[in-house]
């Protein structure tokens, strides 16, 4: 393809000085008389298909343009019951607006950590809901968010749960997990078998297996440790890295199974 021939003269030229723009404005006026393209916002809403189509038909616009409204990234909804407190949402937040706070679980009545979101900082990038392995933190179509106090902009997990209970359309997009995922590997000689990783693992996918206690050679002092080693069940692991962060000996690390 070659570049287009230089366009010296524009295709449209004035007729009778201003006849063309006047005619265009008049045509638009005639169209708008039936119904202008604007939506009377608090009374009519774009997410309501009725109004969207009404406007589209009246204005001659292509129909159903914003039809996938469910896709919208608005206020989050949190299902506390399925939250596993993995911290991934908080870690993935570029604005550091998510904090994990303790709330009582509905069923077990035990405290567990769930995300609390500060909408004064949130940029609605959706990384948190993308990161959520259980699909319990999703983004809804709710976009009206105003408060008179800054504290009201901080949504506690209970408040996010209320949003969830409203059954708003949820963002339907679920991302697939990358296939060649890295795994949690163990630097075995460093491990002291302390059980911290297994205790804190949100999915309980780490089991401590006994390892044989070696017989010490004469004069050799055995390391002071519990003779157990963590084994990670890769299919259950959500790769949140909690085990790595709680390991006191830094013996867990990311790697690939060879």
């Amino acid at each position, binding site marked *: 393809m070659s570049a287009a021939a230089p366009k010296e003269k524009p295709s449209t030229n004035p007729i009778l000085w201003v006849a063309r723009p006047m005619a265009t404005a*008049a045509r638009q006026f005639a169209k708008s008389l039936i119904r202008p*393209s604007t939506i009377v916002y608090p009374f009519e809403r774009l997410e309501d298909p009725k109004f969207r189509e009404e406007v589209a038909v009246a204005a001659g616009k292509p129909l159903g343009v914003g039809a996938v409204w469910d896709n919208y990234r608005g206020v989050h909804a949190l299902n506390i019951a399925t939250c596993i407190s993995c911290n991934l949402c908080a870690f993935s937040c570029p604005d550091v607006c998510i904090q994990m706070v303790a709330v009582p679980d509905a069923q077990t009545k035990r405290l567990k950590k769930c995300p609390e979101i500060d909408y004064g900082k949130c940029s609605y990038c959706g990384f948190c809901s993308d990161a959520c392995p259980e699909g319990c933190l999703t983004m809804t179509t709710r976009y009206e968010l105003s408060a008179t106090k800054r504290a009201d902009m901080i949504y506690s997990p209970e408040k996010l749960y209320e949003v969830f209970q409203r059954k708003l359309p949820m963002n339907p997009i679920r991302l697939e997990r990358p296939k060649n995922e890295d795994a949690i590997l163990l630097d075995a000689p460093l491990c002291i078998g302390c059980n911290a990783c297994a205790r804190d693992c949100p999915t309980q996918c780490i089991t401590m297996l006994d390892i044989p206690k070696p017989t010490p050679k004469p004069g050799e002092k055995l390391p002071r440790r519990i003779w157990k080693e963590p084994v990670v069940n890769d299919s259950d692991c959500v790769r949140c890295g909690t085990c790595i962060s709680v390991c006191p000996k830094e013996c867990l690390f990311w790697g690939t199974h060879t």
Partner: protein
Amino acid sequence: MTVTLYSVAQSIAQAILGAIASVLPPAGRGVASAPVVTGLAVLLFAAILLVASMLNTIVLIWFERKLLGRFMDRRGAMHVGFAGILQNFADGLKLARKDTVRPREADTLGFWTGPTAYLVTSLILFGILPVSSGWNSGVLPLSLLLALAIFSFAPLFIFVSAWSSNNKYSLMGGMRSAAQMIAYEVPLLLSVVAVVLVSGSFDLTTIVEQQQNYWYGGPLLLALIVFVAAMLAEMERIPFDLPEAEAELVEGWNTEYGGMLFAFFMLSDYVRALVGSYLVVLLFLGGWTMPTWVPSTLTSFPLAGIVWFMIKTYIVFGVFVWVRAALPRVRTDQLLRVGWNRMIPLALLSVVLAAGVVYAKCLPVFGCVPGLGG
């Protein structure tokens, strides 16, 4: 048919004073005497005229907002009152509540008198222009001349307020405004001369009444076009709104004004827009005279003339709004060049054409119209 505004005011005054006199002791009965009634009637007349004209202006602003909204594929004001008709009252109240901030370096006298005098001189025009027979302040043989003379006060006050606000944008806007108004004053007056030539009168009532059979806008089409274009420039509306071209001069000569003084400017602009539309209707479109095919039951209705006049006025203003919706603003030098090089020759040509019309007044084309040529 011949209900005049003054007679209405007089009867109201008589009723009020009569009521007062009936409750007063006999010594005070003199309040209902003829001179007092006349005095009160004049005051009432002025008050009715002012309030009605202001209301009309505010409705005009609403009309522009709604019409412009539809041109722009939106709705315009719509929430306050029916279809947003009270929106401008709300805006006015808001502006009235606001403080007027005067820049420290501004000249106090000019800063305050500029907008006030601008508004006052614009409002005076309502007392001069008749909206129907008998609905003005009496017989003024030179009412057209007087109206145009008062109409052309504006550049002075605009320039005073622009200069005294001590702002570079204001100053440039004021100078543009002065240059533009003076340049367009000439074609405006020349195109009026065409009308005066044909009608042979400076009295607006006479001019209107002579258009009973045909509108001057027909034979004097050129004068009408020149007049409308010059009037657009005088009213400082798009495409000739460069004194307040907000793109480069922020808000032109009213940059430094806020609160009620800004409201004065806004109101005066629309008063002048209304007056401009009045003049177009009066001079070229037959004023309040009804076409002959309208049944007499309608024409004999007391306010029929005014309604007919207002319909025409709003249509003329609608054309101004249409122009505003479709055209960009021109540049200062282009405006002045068009004014001096195109408008004035065209206006002169229209005067010549008018002379031709007067000469050919009994040509069968126009019919032998009584009153043509004075």
